[in-house]
C-alpha cells in the first residue's frame, strides 16, 4: 500500500485496542447512504517508475524551446546551490513556524529575507510573502485603502501599462470592497501620460499604482508620478521587478517622499518559471503602515535566557486570531520559494544581482537591434527600458509566434489578446541566459517566418 506502513498484525492489535472488529466499523457514524462508490475517473495505482514514465513523456512534449518570453516570468540562471539547499527535507517538509522553538531555521531565514527585501525596495518592513505578484497587488490595494484613512476617495488608479493579468486579479479580488479602479492613459511610448494626468486626472485619489518596469518593459517617470500622487493625498503602490531593483531606483526613494508600498513577483530571484507557479509575491511598506500589512511577519526577540531568537509577530492582525476583521484571509503563503530567493540573494549579493540585470539589459538591446534590422520589424516605443521591448511586426504576432515555435524558439508574448490595437505586436525579452548565437538564430528564424 503506497505510503501506508501498517502490517496486518499491527492492524489487528490496533483494532482490538480500539475495541472494533474491522476498520470499517470506525466509520459507523457516517450515514450509509453517503458512502462513496467506485472512483471511475481515477486510474489504477502506478509505481513510482510507471508514474515517472507517464509524466516524463508529457514533460518531454513541452521541452526544448529557447525562451524569449517575459511578461512577468523570466528564464534566469539559478545557481546550483539554491535548490540543493531549498530541497532539504528540513525546509521542504516543515509546517508554518507556529512552534517557534522548533522552527528557528525557517524563522531566521524569513527574517533574513525580510531584511533583503527591504534593502532592495528601500522600504522599512516586508512580510513573509503572499501568493504571487498579481494577488499581491490586490492585497496591496486593500492595504492602501485601509491605511489611507485621511482620503475621502476610494479611487485607485491603475496605469494601462500595468500587466493586464495583475489588473484583472486586483479588480477581481477587490470587487466586493467598494474600491473604484480608474485607468491611467498612456503616451505614444507606452508610458503613463503625465500631461493627460495633470489635466484630466482626479483631484483626490486614495492610491496610485505604478509598475516599474511596466508591462511593455518601459521605464516610467516614477519620481513625477509619485509626487503627483502625493499632492492628491494618494498612497503610491509600486509594482516592481526585484532583479531590476539591483540597478533601478528603489521605490522608497521615488519622488520627494518615496512610494508607500512596494509589491511584485519574486520569481526572478531563484525560482524556475514552472508554468507560472509556485513562485511568490512580496509586499514591503513604510513602518507606519505595518499593522495593515497582510500575511505573516517575523520578528527578532530573545529567549528567556536572553539569547537572540526569531518568532512570528503581529499575529493579532491575522485570520486565526482576528477572524472576520483580519487584514486578509491569507494563511499558507509561499514559504519554500522565499527560502530559494533568500539563498539566491545571498549567493549573488549586490554585485551579482546587478551584473545579471546589466546582462539582461544588454542582451535585450542586442536582440532588438538584431530583430529590427529585419524589414518591417520596428520597436513600438522609444525611451528607456529594462529587459523587455514591444516589437511591431508586419504580420499578426500570434502567427509569427507559431512559426517561431516550429523552429524551436518561444519568440515572446503576442499582445493582441490584451490590446486590440496591438495585434501585430510582440513583447520580447532576452535574459542573461540568452547567447549571441541564440539571438542570431532568433533573427534568422524571424526572417524566414515573416517571409513565408
Amino acid at each position: 500500500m503506497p505510503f501506508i506502513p501498517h502490517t496486518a498484525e499491527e492492524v489487528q492489535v490496533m483494532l482490538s485496542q480500539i475495541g472494533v472488529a474491522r476498520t470499517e466499523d470506525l466509520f459507523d457514524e457516517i450515514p450509509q447512504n453517503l458512502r462513496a462508490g467506485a472512483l471511475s475517473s481515477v486510474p489504477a495505482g502506478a509505481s513510482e517508475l510507471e508514474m515517472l514514465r507517464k509524466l516524463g513523456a508529457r514533460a518531454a512534449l513541452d521541452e526544448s524551446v529557447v525562451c524569449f518570453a517575459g511578461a512577468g516570468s523570466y528564464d534566469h540562471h539559478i545557481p546550483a546551490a539554491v535548490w540543493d539547499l531549498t530541497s532539504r527535507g528540513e525546509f521542504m517538509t516543515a509546517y508554518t513556524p507556529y512552534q517557534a522553538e522548533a522552527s528557528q531555521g525557517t524563522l531566521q531565514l524569513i527574517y533574513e529575507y525580510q531584511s533583503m527585501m527591504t534593502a532592495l525596495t528601500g522600504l522599512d518592513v516586508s512580510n513573509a510573502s503572499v501568493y504571487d505578484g498579481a494577488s499581491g497587488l490586490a492585497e496591496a490595494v486593500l492595504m492602501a485603502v485601509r491605511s489611507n484613512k485621511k482620503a475621502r476617495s476610494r479611487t485607485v488608479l491603475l496605469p494601462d501599462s500595468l500587466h493586464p493579468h495583475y489588473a484583472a486579479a486586483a479588480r477581481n479580488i477587490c470587487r466586493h470592497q467598494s474600491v473604484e479602479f480608474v485607468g491611467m492613459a498612456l503616451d505614444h511610448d507606452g508610458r503613463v501620460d503625465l500631461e493627460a494626468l495633470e489635466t484630466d486626472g482626479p483631484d483626490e485619489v486614495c492610491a496610485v499604482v505604478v509598475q516599474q518596469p511596466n508591462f511593455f518593459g518601459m521605464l516610467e517617470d516614477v519620481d513625477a508620478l509619485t509626487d503627483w500622487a502625493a499632492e492628491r493625498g494618494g498612497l503610491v503602490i509600486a509594482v516592481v521587478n526585484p532583479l531590476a531593483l539591483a540597478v533601478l531606483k528603489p521605490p522608497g526613494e521615488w519622488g520627494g517622499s518615496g512610494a508607500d508600498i512596494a509589491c511584485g513577483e519574486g520569481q526572478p530571484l531563484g525560482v524556475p518559471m514552472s508554468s507560472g507557479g509556485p513562485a511568490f509575491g512580496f509586499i514591503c511598506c513604510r513602518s507606519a503602515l505595518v499593522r495593515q500589512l497582510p500575511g505573516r511577519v517575523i520578528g527578532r526577540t530573545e529567549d528567556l535566557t536572553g539569547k537572540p531568537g526569531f518568532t512570528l509577530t503581529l499575529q493579532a492582525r491575522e485570520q486565526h486570531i482576528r477572524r472576520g476583521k483580519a487584514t486578509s484571509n491569507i494563511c499558507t503563503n509561499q514559504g519554500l520559494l522565499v527560502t530559494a530567493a533568500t539563498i539566491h540573494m545571498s549567493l549573488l549579493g549586490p554585485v551579482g544581482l546587478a551584473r545579471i540585470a546589466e546582462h539582461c539589459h544588454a542582451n535585450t538591446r542586442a536582440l532588438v537591434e538584431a530583430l529590427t534590422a529585419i524589414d518591417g520589424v520596428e520597436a513600438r516605443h522609444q525611451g528607456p527600458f529594462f529587459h523587455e521591448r514591444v516589437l511591431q511586426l508586419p504580420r499578426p504576432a500570434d502567427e509569427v509566434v507559431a512559426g517561431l515555435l516550429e523552429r524551436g524558439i518561444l519568440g515572446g508574448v503576442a499582445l493582441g489578446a490584451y490590446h486590440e490595437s496591438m495585434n501585430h505586436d510582440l513583447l520580447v525579452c532576452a535574459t542573461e541566459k540568452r547567447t549571441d548565437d541564440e539571438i542570431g538564430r532568433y533573427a534568422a528564424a524571424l526572417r524566414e517566418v515573416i517571409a513565408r
Partner: protein
Amino acid sequence: MSDVRTIFELSAQNRGAAAQHLSERPGAMDDIPASLRRERAPGLPEVSELQVVRHYTNLSRKNFSIDTNFYPLGSCTMKYNPRGAHRAASLPGFLNRHPLAPDSASQGFMACLHELQEILKDVTGMQGVSLTPMAGAQGEFAGVAMIRAYHEARGDHARNEILVPSAAHGTNPATAAMCGYRVAEVPVNASGDVDLEALKLAVGPQTAGLMMTNPSTCGVFERGIESIAAVVHDAGGLLYYDGANLNAILGKVKPGSMGFDVLHMNLHKTFATPHGGGGPGAGPVGVGERLLPYLPVPFVAQDAKGAYRWVTDAELPDSIGRLSAYAGNAGILLRALAYALMLGREGMHRVGEYSTLNANYLARRLEDAGFELAYPDRRATHEFILTFSESARSRDVTAMDFAKRLLDYGIHSPTTYFPLLIPECFLIEPTETETKAELDAFVDALVAIQREAEADPEKVKGAPYDLPVRRLDDVKAARELDLAWRG
C-alpha cells in the same frame, strides 16, 4: 548549531561568491537616465558560496520537519511527502515551461492539469473543478465569490450574510468579509455537532451560504449534515465545504453526496504536497451544476480531437475571473497528480481508512493512559481533541507547557488552543503514514510529561530545554518590533 549570527554578520565588503558573478559590462546601463537608476547598491550580504551553503544547511537543522520528526499537527495533515512527486514536478519540461507558452507547446502540461481536474471531480463528487487558487484561503475566496455571483445573477441581492459554525477555521470568517459578507456564527452542541435548532433560527432570506468542514474541526463527523444541507438549501443558501479535513474521508465519502454546492481542497494536506515551512499550497475549487458558470479561470478543457486548450473568461463570461497572474501553483498541482497516480483508485480510500485507524488507536491509548478526550463518546475521525484543562486548573501546567515539553522529546507539538471552544486543548492528527511504533512513542512521551508535571511542574513549565532556543519572548517581539536587519 548554536550559532545565531545572521547571514549579514558573515558578510564582508567585496567578498561575494565570485562563481556566481557574470562578467562586467561597463556602461551597460548608460542609456538609462541617472534619475531612474539606483545610486547606492542594496544592502545585501557579500558572502562566499561555502558560507551560504553552510549557513543555510545549519539553519535547516534548527527545524522540525516531517522528514525528521513525528509532526501530528491537527487540521494540517502532516503526512509523508513522496520524493517521487517532487521528482516528477522537477522534470525539465515542466520546470522550464513559460506560463504564457502557446497551447501547441504545452500539451504535456495541460494533459496533466486536465487529468488532475478529472480525478478531483470524481473524488469530490463535483461537476467542475478549477485548479487556479494558490492556497486554501484563496480557494475559499473563489468559492464564496462564486456563491455571491450566483445570488447576484439571480437578482437576489438581499443575501448579505455567511454562516459559520463557532468551531470554524479563522479563514472562513475572514474570507466571507473579503467577499463583502457579514458573518454570523452558529453554535456547536456538546457532542460536537452543529446545533440544528440554532441553525434553523439563524437562516433566512439574508443567508448567502454556510461554510463548514466535515469532519468538523472538533475531530468528529457531522452526523446531521443532510439535515443541515436541507435547512440551508430550503432557505435559499448554498453550502460551502472547507476541504481542510478531506483526508479523513478521502475515497470514503464524496462531499457532493453530502449536499455541498462548492468546495476547496488543500492539496498540501490531502494530496501530500510539501508544506514548505508555510507554503506553497494549492486550493483547487470544485462546484456543482449551479456554480459551473462562475468558476475562476483559467482551467483546461479537452476538445473532440483530444487537444487541450485553456478556458478563459472570453469563453466563460460570468466567471469570477482570474485570481493570480497565470494558472495557479502549477508545480504543486503536478505533485498532487503524481501522488494521486501512485495511490490509484484502490489506494485513495485507504488514506481515509488508515488515517482514521491511526487517530482512533491513538485516542484510545491516550484515554486508557488517563488523558481526557474532549468527545469521549464519539468516534475520532482522522484527528481528535485532548483537553488539559484539569492539569491547567490543578497544577497550572497548560496545554502550551505540554506542547513545549514534547519538543524536548523530539516530537512536534499537535495544534494547540484550536478549536477555540475547547479550553487547553490539543488537536491531534497522526495521519496514515505513521507507524504504530511512532504512535506508541507519542503516548509514552505524553505519559512521561504527565509524570513530570505531577512531580515537578516547574520543569514542564520551563520547557523546552534541548532546542536551539528556550521559550521566546513574544511580548518583546511585538512591543519592540525588529523586523529587518539594520547592521
